[in-house]
């Protein structure tokens, strides 16, 4: 299973959503769909119509920048980053 790490801006929006989640998924899109099944609405916070990742949501699979279709290995680490700076 992949080790999914979520940004601190996301978890307060969904009761019980932890910062680290283990998901059984073959792609980033499947991993997000897995979250959506358990925490409805999560997908809309990470993706916009297309679907594509929201502009300032960056996903890294095993430390490489990824897209929704990026494949996951069974032991992949997936970092989801809220990725703009500013005050």
């Amino acid at each position: 299973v992949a080790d999914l790490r979520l940004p601190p801006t996301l978890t307060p929006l969904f009761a019980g959503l932890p910062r680290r989640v283990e998901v059984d998924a073959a792609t980033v899109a499947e991993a997000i769909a897995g979250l959506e099944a358990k925490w409805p609405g999560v997908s809309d916070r990470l993706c916009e119509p297309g679907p594509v990742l929201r502009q300032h949501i960056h996903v890294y699979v095993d430390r490489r920048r990824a897209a929704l279709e990026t494949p996951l290995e069974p032991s992949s680490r997936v970092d989801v980053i809220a990725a703009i700076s500013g005050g």
Partner: protein
Amino acid sequence: VRDLESGGEDVSRTLLLVGTRKGCFVLESDADRRDWSVRGPYCESWPVYHAVHDAGSGAIYAAAASEWHGSAVWRSADLGETWALSSEGLGYGEDDPRKVSKVSSLGVAGERVLVGAEAPGVFESRDGGETWSLLTTLAGQPGSEAWDDPSNQPPGHLGISGITTDAADPSRFWAIVQGVGLFETGDGGETWTPRNRGLRADWPREHEEVGFCVHRLARSPADGERMYQQNHVGVHRSDDGGRSWFEITDGLPSEFGFAAAAHPHDPDIFYVIPLDPGHARCMPDGRAAVWRTRNGGESWERLDRGLPQHDAHLGVLRAAMTTDAHDVPGLYFGTSTGQLFASVDEGESWSELAAYLPPVWSVEVAVVE
């Protein structure tokens, strides 16, 4: 609200709903409105463009857009203590090139909650904000082909920047398309009519009926035919529910401004905050003032007692001034540098309720038991 058991004392609570760049705040006082407490930030400190109270259900709604997590409407059933958000249905669909980059203007029309979006569209909720559906994009109105073109959608432009509802008729409301003009529907959003006749525009326009820059519409609660607006160029008045307009700018220090508020009981009293129209968009000369007319715009008076009169370069945005409905109404405005000012004597004198809020984008008031 009069509590007869306590000798007729007014026991109502006055709440200010303040939308800021860092969340929604709630300020609370009693009917005297002298001492205020501040609660917040709510909505996880998302940028909140507008927050309103639905007197019918008692709910608060807050239109918000996170740079990370997109647009949503937050709702609270307990006057701000707890919140939930939803964006279900807040979109134009997978195959539509238009995107909802922001939801920024709320209105309550009977059982429906309305929210205006950018790109321009009005979404409605009939279940208290749990789900949303597209009500209208004002398709076919003059100018819509231009505002529906995604290449004309720079961030921060061309949304529905204001919705004004009619307490007496939930099927009637007005929507402002930013940089295009004011539109009215009388059938719940199915058909629309431009309401810009008589307005001024100092730029070329392609259509006779649109191309106007309406910043803020204020409809008199005492006379629904009486409307005022702060426009990019001038302050204007209508005596026929927006069907025709004439200018009442003479006597003001600037024709430019954003915020506007109508007196709740007297249709001839109206407030604006003139701003420097250049890059500053602040109150002129570093001296803070609200301007009032008591005769429908024939003359204006400067109200500044209690407001800072030097080095006060304050801006006030379109939704950031409002009145309450008390017998002697209160007037409130928030600044883009985070100050919140109030007057409880119709503007004669002012006090600062908060000095260090985030940039204020909207101020609305609720009087509850």
